[in-house]
């Protein structure tokens, strides 16, 4: 068999392999959670020299932008009692949305919060059922796993509502880092995010539709 013929069969074989539609949709949703500026394509239009120049220009621009951010913007956000919680809420919402669309399997299957508490002993807070989910109905606990919110250990709990929809609930200790954060309701690329405080815990709830 010639090399061309063999390669043709390989192309045909791999061309017939498809990622399933559900996973594909989930990945596309994931890709759209955060919108980033795309770097202009230089590899197909420019010479090596132009590519290097564009790369250096991009690097220099990024460095200047980072300097401005560190020098002016971040201190301003820290000192602004309104802007900082707003930025923090946005960051948490993105983190929650990202974790939600990853749809990771549960590590600790459980039918309720007592079962989860028993299995997730590394948490430095006590897991509990939230009072203000905003969904109006009861949720069935499927299980949980460890995760982090803003670098802080958290619990990620998979829930199912009466209509069979999967939701992801997050709980973590409401540390001083979250001070000033108020109840938030946001939408990111079709994912409904709700963030709120109950006593000493910070809660987050994500669902593709609530």
């Amino acid at each position, binding site marked *: 068999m010639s090399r061309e013929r063999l390669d043709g069969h390989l192309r045909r074989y*791999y061309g017939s*392999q498809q990622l399933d539609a559900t996973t594909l949709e989930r990945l596309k949703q994931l890709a759209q959670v955060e*919108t980033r500026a*795309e770097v202009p394509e230089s590899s197909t239009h420019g010479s090596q020299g132009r590519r290097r120049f564009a790369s250096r220009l991009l690097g220099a621009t990024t460095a200047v932008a980072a300097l401005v951010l560190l020098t002016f913007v971040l201190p301003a956000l820290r000192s602004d009692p309104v802007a900082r919680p707003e930025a923090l809420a946005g960051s948490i919402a993105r983190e929650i949305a990202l974790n939600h669309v990853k749809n990771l399997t549960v590590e600790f299957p459980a039918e309720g919060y007592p079962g989860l508490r028993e299995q997730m002993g590394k948490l430095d807070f006590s897991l509990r059922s939230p009072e203000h989910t905003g969904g109006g109905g009861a949720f069935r606990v499927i299980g949980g796993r460890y995760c982090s919110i803003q670098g802080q250990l958290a619990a990620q709990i998979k829930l199912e509502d009466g209509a069979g929809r999967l939701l992801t609930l997050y709980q973590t200790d409401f540390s001083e880092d979250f001070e000033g954060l108020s109840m938030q309701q946001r939408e990111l690329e079709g994912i409904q995010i709700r963030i709120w405080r109950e006593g000493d815990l910070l809660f987050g709830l994500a669902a593709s539709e609530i």
Partner: protein
Amino acid sequence: MKKRSMQLRARSGESEKARDEDLDELFQRGFRYALALSHDPDRAADLLQDACVSCLRAGAAWRTGYLFSAIRSRFVDQYRRQMISVVEPIGDPGALERAGAAEDPTHDELFRADLDHLDRALGGLRADEREALYLSAVEGYSAREIAEATGRPRGTVLSVIHRARRKLRDRLRDSGIEETL
């Protein structure tokens, strides 16, 4: 075959539909590359998903190069032992059945049967051999580009590709299906 390097069309310049199609193609290619490495559809989907999350966290643009690199990195992390030391056996090539050859098979059945044979033959190659073959035959990478992507000398890459083709031909010949392919 020309190498298909791609980057998503920017949101501002193209329609959402075009971007959606780009994402489709990017993820399907990522899946096939992960499949070439793992030869397991479930593992390939997991590798792709992990790589996407990694790209997102790193703030990398949605480009083939970044995605392939993240997939490879995850694969090497997860399957390092197998990749280095295990030569996956093909089993008894004579046991390969000529599915669809029984009675009056349709074109689709023959097509499927051929792909099944190729699938088994590919399963007998090592991960690095499948990877090199995939990048060369399907993605159209040159030996130099594969060497850069995989961190190997160009000569080694050429040798791996040559060996992979030979093994694939042998396995197909042994199973008696070369002519039908």
